[in-house]
């Protein structure tokens, strides 16, 4: 993936994390959201990103995501 797409995926994941920050289980909520709406290729792209670029909740959510069927 291009740097443009990588940056965008990171931005989207961080944005989801910020918007679900007040959920009772933010990590679980972020993971569930990404799993429900993101294409496996995007999820795989996000897995390849450095944790440093991701907010902690987003990084934890990605780390806990089950493998996709794609």
């Amino acid at each position, binding site marked *: 993936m291009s740097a443009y797409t990588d940056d965008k995926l990171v*931005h989207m994941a961080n944005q989801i994390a*910020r918007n679900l920050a*007040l959920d009772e289980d933010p990590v679980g909520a972020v993971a569930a959201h990404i799993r*429900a709406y993101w*294409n496996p290729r995007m999820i795989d792209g996000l897995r390849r990103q450095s944790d440093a670029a991701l907010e902690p909740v987003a990084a934890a959510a990605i780390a806990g995501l089950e493998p*996709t*069927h*794609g």
Partner: protein
Amino acid sequence: MGYERQTDLGTPLVASDTQVTCLIDGRAVTVPAGTTVMRAAALAGGSIPKLCATDNLKQFGSCRLCLVEIDGMRGTPASCTTPVSDGMTVRTQTPRLEKLRRGVMELYISDHPLDCLTCSANNDCELQDQAAAVGLRDVRYGYEGTNHLEAEVDTTNPYFDFDPAKCIACSRCVRACDEVQGTLALTIDGRGFASKVSAGLASDSFLSSECVSCGACVQACPTASLQEKTVKAIGKPERSVVTTCAYCGVGCTFRAEMRGEQLVRMVPWKDGKANRGHSCVKGRFAWGYAQHQERILKPMIRETIGQPWREVSWDEALGYAAARINTIRDTYGRNALGGITSSRCTNEETFLVQKLIRAGFGTNNVDTCARVCHSPTGYGLKTTFGTSAGTQDFDSVEQSDVILVIGANPTDGHPVFASRMKKRLRAGARLIVIDPRRTDLVRSPHISADYHLPLRPGTNVAILTAIAHVIVSEGLADEAFIRERCDWDEYSHWADFVAEERHSPEFLAAVTGVDAETVRGAARLFATGGNGAIYYGLGVTEHSQGSSTVMAIANLAMATGNIGRPGVGVNPLRGQNNVQGACDMGSFPHELSGYRHVSDPAARALFEAEWGVAIDPEPGLRIPNMLDAATDGTFKAIYIQGEDILQSDPDTHHVAAGLAAMDCVIVHDLFLNETANYAHVFLPGSTFLEKNGTFTNAERRIQPVRKVMEPLNGLEDWQVTQELARAIGLDWNYTHPSDLMDEIARLTPSFAGVNYDRLDAEGSLQWPVNDAAPDGSPIMHVDGFVRGKGRFVVTDYVPTDERTGPRFPLLLTTGRTLSQYNVGAQTRRTANTVWHLEDVLEMHPVDAENRGLGTGDWARLASRSGETTLRVVVTDRVAPGVVYTTFHHPATQANVVTTDFSDWATNCPEYKVTAVQVAPSNGPSDWQEAYEAQAMQSRRIARQDSSMEPAE
């Protein structure tokens, strides 16, 4: 059906629990108390002569033609203003009445041109009919006296003429403008013999006046005084077909009045349940694009986008497209393919396109233009209520006491519903408007918002949380409703959150820019004013927090108990005619029809059994993700039906790069739109006049679209998609869109009871239509929420990452205007351009003066994404620091400036907030000139004689 005038009972329906029975010309008739003698007589099968009365206007009693005799009453009362009473005995046809009526008619005719045989309303004129009805044989006064016969005709309006010589001063046009449209542009100027209909000031013409060309006056006129130019040009229609408008999400029912294959006029159908006989300038008049010379009628192909188009047969075009699709699938895999369904096409066509993508291409890479408008509505309302749709029907507004409009400009975007809303406001409902601009609804004739909250763009969540703070902290929440209908623990959690001091209007005033007392007043009014209804539009959804705002709206409705009955509810005003339907039909990459997730094995099994193929259990790519994947080299081909993503989607440079990177772009459309500049295959589309199907409007109303003429391109759109499917090897054999609706009903629980026979018999149905709601569902969540308990969701205000700063100090927000529609592909090809020839930039006087700009000056509008130029209009409609434009014209390409930021949950683009700078300019930007050159190059069509023609 043939052509006959729509039934007119003379005066409006009266609602009453009491029934009264009277005797009219010896016939007994029972009607609701308060019904006029005129209406009762019509219901009894009679016909009392009339001129000033018509049943969509309040009775007026001016023409004196409808006089009757009533036992026990003196004289001859006017039947249009006399209510029936129990036991009343009425005579409508007596020698005395005939003499009186003839006398009245003689006066009318003495000052009316006797050119019936050459008049455009000949045999379709109420004056002519009534002259016959009263047996007029002579005019004793002669025709030589002072008269109006030489009055000049006003031909300024592009769609209708006003001929004062044929006016009988019945005031129907004036009353229609007042009561039905609510613009109050017309008046009767002068008194007595000098009385005349006047649009605006004495110096005004119809075009220069405040007339919005809705057509209500033309429809109301009983003579040829106000008449469509097309009727004058073509003549009286000879047949008619009832169908549904293809413009906005209101979904007006029209009668297409035809002469052979030629459309003479579109007239709003009184039985239409969305529009109740009203129309706007687009649906009523702006249909000329259907026969526009720029319409492409032959399939075209080309190897590369640098080549000119080559016209070919359907077989060659479809075979060429299929070969490229199959090659790409073999080379790169099924997930290199995808498609976009259209919110302008029918449910059946949309369903078929997503089926082609899922079952034929073998991928869930399907999306729809709802991605860029109301996808947050689907997410937000499903999360909170359990259903991805609005809760009410349009009739509901008639019972609203407080109307809250946020992020919507209905008088421009949804004008027919706006007229209904304004009617209710004139009758006393209170109004709160939350919008950065002072929209027409904030203040217009006889309408004045009780509260206008001119918030800073991007702060919707903050303002709604502040309103919720007031409601909760002042004890105004409807706890009985919440305890019965919602999860109390979730409510308590939410209430604690909104009650925090940091969410008070005083604290958030610095964020929203709205005075705290105004917010408190609005909150108190909404919570205590009776039935509270919330209407919203793209000013809510097209933000980084679009989904959060929708959920905040839902929270507010639940907290105040405003769900589950007429007069209340959460009402998304849908942009395009079939946005609701496109979403219902499974156009999103993660959902099958009926909003069932692709990961749901039971839902997939249903489709797999019907379609005989496996469905991918993983979500596909959304439109922006498809474009990203294309620039990354992993997405190679796309089939786009009825959608112009290059003009409508944000960050034009990125969209163009994505399209340019694909090996096969198939555009299926009416015109060579902007996206087609990057296409390899062009499949000509059919207009809504040329096909059968259904649209679903903003109130979940499924309405028939009926073919009124044969498709100029030879095929209806569903047939084109079917032929493409067959070309790639699918054995599809649908013979009529009703076959498709039957399949939709089999696979979609909310459509289980829908079929064409029922739609024909009942006119329309509001989903869900199933065993639990066999007659459909005008109001949702009546006895409980679809999801069980209503869910309060904590919606924290997370500011957008799009920030103003020294380089880009202003906030750009975008919208639409009354006369144009979306990217303008249709309306730009009609006379509507007389009202909006170009997109302009609205700017506050202070900001304009700081930059040395005045109205009419060219300005350079730049953001971090790109820049364009357009002319400035200086106005205090926008606040200082905010600029506004529309996106109807490709020459401007406002979306060159908008960014790739989007809603956190759905990727709906953030059109409404872009940090920009504005500076004086001396003309189009380099990019605009390069774009125009590329578009011209791309639209060349090679003719068979080797000549080259530009398509536009």
